[in-house]
């Protein structure tokens, strides 16, 4: 505990990273969580904070190609990271297939968990383009929906799988797929 009157301002550290294809830079305290940097400093408030303890998954982002919880990463660790947040899913006015699927299947009620559900769902579909219901439920086990709207969330991800498979064959890649293409399938290094 620091004695009274000896307050020392924190050392600020510069962090530069890429979010949704755009480069951002800012000064942070070493203790700042990545999610606070994204929301409060960069004003990308699509990524939510539901618990701050690593349980709820509302802060899930695509971090260097895999779904991770941005409240479980320090901002200074994200130096040079390549991140996709919910804001980067749509292509201008055109929603990403997984967003369309949530829209069409009533996959959200209050919408609070949705940004995390979308990214967790997307990660699942990149790895497993045609998941069973059990696989979907396991894929989003790290995301809590307090409206308990899981039935329609599962339905939405199932519908998104279909949309994305149909879109895959002829269409060129959009920018979210470009990032997603980096999602590593598990393989061991020799």
């Amino acid at each position: 505990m620091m004695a009274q009157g000896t307050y020392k301002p924190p050392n600020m550290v510069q962090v530069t990273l890429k979010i949704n294809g755009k480069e951002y830079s800012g000064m942070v305290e070493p203790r700042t969580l990545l999610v606070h940097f994204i929301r409060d400093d960069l004003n990308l408030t699509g990524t939510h904070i539901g618990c701050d303890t690593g349980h709820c998954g509302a802060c899930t982002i695509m971090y260097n190609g895999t779904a991770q919880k941005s409240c479980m990463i320090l901002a200074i660790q994200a130096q040079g990271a390549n991140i996709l947040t919910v804001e980067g899913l749509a292509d201008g006015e055109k929603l990403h297939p997984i967003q369309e699927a949530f829209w069409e299947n009533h996959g959200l009620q209050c919408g609070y968990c949705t940004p995390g559900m979308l990214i967790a769902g997307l990660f699942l579909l990149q790895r497993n383009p045609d998941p069973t219901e059990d696989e979907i439920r396991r894929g989003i086990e790290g995301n809590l929906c307090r409206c308990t709207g899981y039935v329609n969330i599962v339905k939405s991800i199932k519908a998104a799988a279909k949309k994305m498979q149909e879109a895959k064959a002829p269409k060129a890649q959009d920018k979210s797929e470009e990032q997603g293409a980096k999602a590593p399938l598990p393989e061991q290094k020799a």
Partner: protein
Amino acid sequence: MNETIDLLKTKEEPKVLAGGQSLLALMKLRLAAPKNIIDITNLEGLSYIREDKDHLAIGALTIHDLVENSQVIREKFTLLSDAASKIGDQQIRNRGTIGGSACHADPAADLPTALLAADAHFVVEGSSGKREILPKDMFVDVFTTSIEHDEVLTQIKIPYFLPKSGSGYIKHSRREGDFAITSCGVVIAMDTTNNVCKDVRIALGSVASTPIRFKNAEEYLKGKTMDEKTIVEASQREAEGADPPSDMHGSREYRLEMIKVFTKRSVKLAMSRVK
């Protein structure tokens, strides 16, 4: 790595962060307040799963997701992929590391218990050089290992199991992704011609201050024909001498019962995988 060891020696109250899926949670709860954090998450060359001559070598920074899905681990060290698959959730498994989990040494965590059953050796590097910690010496107390303050875990070595071995890990928890109330990892080697147990290791999680091998059931089972009665008797014996804690997740008495149940189930699971 040298820089890490230097920092560990020179910085005040340092703590290594390797993934951070436990350490950051503890810091938020103010259960840990290290003055200096040394983040090794991005150190190169410490994420690998490699079949060496006498053992499987796993780099300390290998994430749980890779352990869960590795072909060689699934085939030959199945209890480790069982355990990795039960950790937290997909997002945690995409960031948390096997070395981080081992050093964190939570008695209710999945990998430490499975690693103990797998007879894993822990390679650490420090200012006085490289050394190997034996499985029985690794876990000292809750959140405490025998790794010295100026040492870093770099590799986990798992000796190949005997021929005709099978392994399994089962975790008992109220919800998916929770910490275990009781968990059990088993590696068993069989003589398949007469269904006799040649060798067996049984480790339990969340029933003591560390993952633990009581060895009661192990000693009873060696050389026995593995029929239902023998397995039940072994499971009863495993709980003898155990003194599990009572907490909000389960009472002492409940855990004693669960030791029996999950020893039995895990032994059967491991046997079903003998090949």
